[in-house]
């Protein structure tokens, strides 16, 4: 299903002689992890401001959920609750004095009843792990916390499409992983996530489909590999081939084998490079609290990883931490590849996601045997 579709949109910034959006026709599909790729100034932000009606095209049409965008005040209000944007610099979109106040800013502007505002604020704060900071002044937060606050503010709008501009820029590696995991979970639960970035490694790991912009023109739409194979096009866009892609291409050349299937994650790449006896994976499902099986797993000799927002909160509050608080699935898969058993503590709603990841690994020659507990 198509979520957003633009048809030949053209846009000029005032006083500019060249269009900053030059006949762009793009289709964003539901349930497809999408990345808009391009160098600085390629028009990425201009494009996504078209998606939520902040910018109106000089010509061409934008359709959201099949309906042409109407620029009447009332309709725009509805549109912007459907399509939320998280900007790169969190300071540009923090409007409240306190954390709580800022997260509630959007819902209050939507004139929702106060109880619902509260509910949404609670949920968004929980998802982003900012619960303990709710009464803090926004100025006292660290950069990483402010970045999560900006995301919480967007989540509180309960959008159907969430556009994130350079979501990991400026974040510490662990925090970046946590954020991408949250994005994955949101996506899994039905929010369409669109990421705008020039970070090719991030884009390659995440995207099912990429759209590449160059000086206001859309020059490519499709799978990542299709674009990165064309090195002239890659060069002209100001980006580079992702390190994982280059590695795999050369590995295939060295072995004189087919580069497909293309690994996107470290565990997939390692599976292709070496194989040995595999360890087993125990998946322990977590709902609202840490059960005995979780405590047993944390105390046991096997390495433990966490996956999902809820379980991370719970485990970080508990006495005994997991070995891999970030990137839990990848870490556990890595353990299995090295022939060691491991335990993945996982939010219940992420089970299918984890199963799909295990399934994906099969194509690379790794069949992890797992059992689900709980």
């Amino acid at each position: 299903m198509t979520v957003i579709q633009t048809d030949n949109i053209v846009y000029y910034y005032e006083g500019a002689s060249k269009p900053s959006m030059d006949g762009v026709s793009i289709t964003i599909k539901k349930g497809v992890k999408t990345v808009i790729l391009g160098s600085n100034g390629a028009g990425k932000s201009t494009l996504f401001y078209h998606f939520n009606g902040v910018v109106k095209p000089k010509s061409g049409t934008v359709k959201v959920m099949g309906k042409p965008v109407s620029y009447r005040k009332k309709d725009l209000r509805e549109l912007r609750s459907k399509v939320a944007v998280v900007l790169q610099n969190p300071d540009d979109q923090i409007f409240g004095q306190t954390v709580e106040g800022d997260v509630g800013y959007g819902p209050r502007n939507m004139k929702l009843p106060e109880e619902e505002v509260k509910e949404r604020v609670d949920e968004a704060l929980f998802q982003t792990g900012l619960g303990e900071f709710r009464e803090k002044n926004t100025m006292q937060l660290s950069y990483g916390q402010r970045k999560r606050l900006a995301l919480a503010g967007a989540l509180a709008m309960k959008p159907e499409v969430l556009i994130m501009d350079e979501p990991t820029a400026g974040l510490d590696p662990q925090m970046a992983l946590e954020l991408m995991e949250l994005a994955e979970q949101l996506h899994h639960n039905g929010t369409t996530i669109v990421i705008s970035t020039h970070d090719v490694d991030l884009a390659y790991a995440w995207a099912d489909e990429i759209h590449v912009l160059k000086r206001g023109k859309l020059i490519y739409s499709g799978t990542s590999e299709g674009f990165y194979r064309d090195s002239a096009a890659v060069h002209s866009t100001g980006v580079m081939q992702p390190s994982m892609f280059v590695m795999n291409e050369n590995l295939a050349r060295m072995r004189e084998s087919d580069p497909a299937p293309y690994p996107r994650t470290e565990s997939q790449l390692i599976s292709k490079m070496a194989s040995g006896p595999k360890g087993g994976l125990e998946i322990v499902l977590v709902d609202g609290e840490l059960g005995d099986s979780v405590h047993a797993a944390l105390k046991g000799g096997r390495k433990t990883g966490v996956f999902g927002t809820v379980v991370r909160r719970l485990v970080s509050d508990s006495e005994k931490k997991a070995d891999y608080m970030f990137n839990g699935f990848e870490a556990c898969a890595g353990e299995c590849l090295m022939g060691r058993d491991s335990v993945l503590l996982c939010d219940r709603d992420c089970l299918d996601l984890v199963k799909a990841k295990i399934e994906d690994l099969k194509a690379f020659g790794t069949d992890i045997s797992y059992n689900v507990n709980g």
Partner: protein
Amino acid sequence: MSEEMQMDTLAYSSRMLKWAPLGKFLFVIAVLIVNIVTNSMMVPFVTLAIGLVLMAYSTNFKIPFFVALALAEAVLILAIGCGMISITGDKADPAIWDTNLLWFDVYMTHDSFNKAWLVMFRGIAGMAVMMSFATSTPIPHLSQALKQVHMPREVSELVVLIYRYGFFLLERLDAMWEAAHCRMGFNGFMNTMKTTASITVGIFTSSSNLADKAQIALDCRNYQGYFPIYNAPPKLGIKWILVTVAAVALIYVFGIYTEGWIDMTKLFFGGSA
């Protein structure tokens, strides 16, 4: 691109960028004054011609849309003003047109009609000359010029810093404005008020943050307490004074010689006056 930015881009791309700012300033002011002190209807045309030639040379008449709009508005206001001048003639003179229109007592005379046109022409010509200066002189050049006339260094440095950070904060303002739209910050009067307040606070905080960090960065670059200038714009030379004096003298003489050549009343109402 913000309007300020367009103006700045234009000034920096001007062919007259390298001309002495003080020279340009002196010339423009002198021409404006002579434009006002002479009574010939021909002088505003000469002034206008000078302004247009300069603008053509400087930027090929590229004027940002918003400036053109502002100019059009100014002309409109000027026209209304001149209209008023034309119908409030001296009652001692014979009237060309004498009537009561709504609550206006219209009394147009030969002199008042001519005077109105003169003011109108002077105004338009003046704007053209001033625009030629404004679109060819970026603010930092102006501040350098101030230094040359022994304005305290602090003042001109402040001008440059405000100019630099002004643009930076404008960028922030734009970004916050759009972000507020994304979160429906302008939905209703109260929300708009709240949003505007938050943006103001945000800009203020970021400007003070920037000032703190810039202080450190200044020290890192071995700031010695003043901003040195590598390529100061050219000083006001004798050339400029000569050109200005010559232009003023010529226009003035021309003004006296051509006084009364054009009579707008005759043109409009024939020989009746």
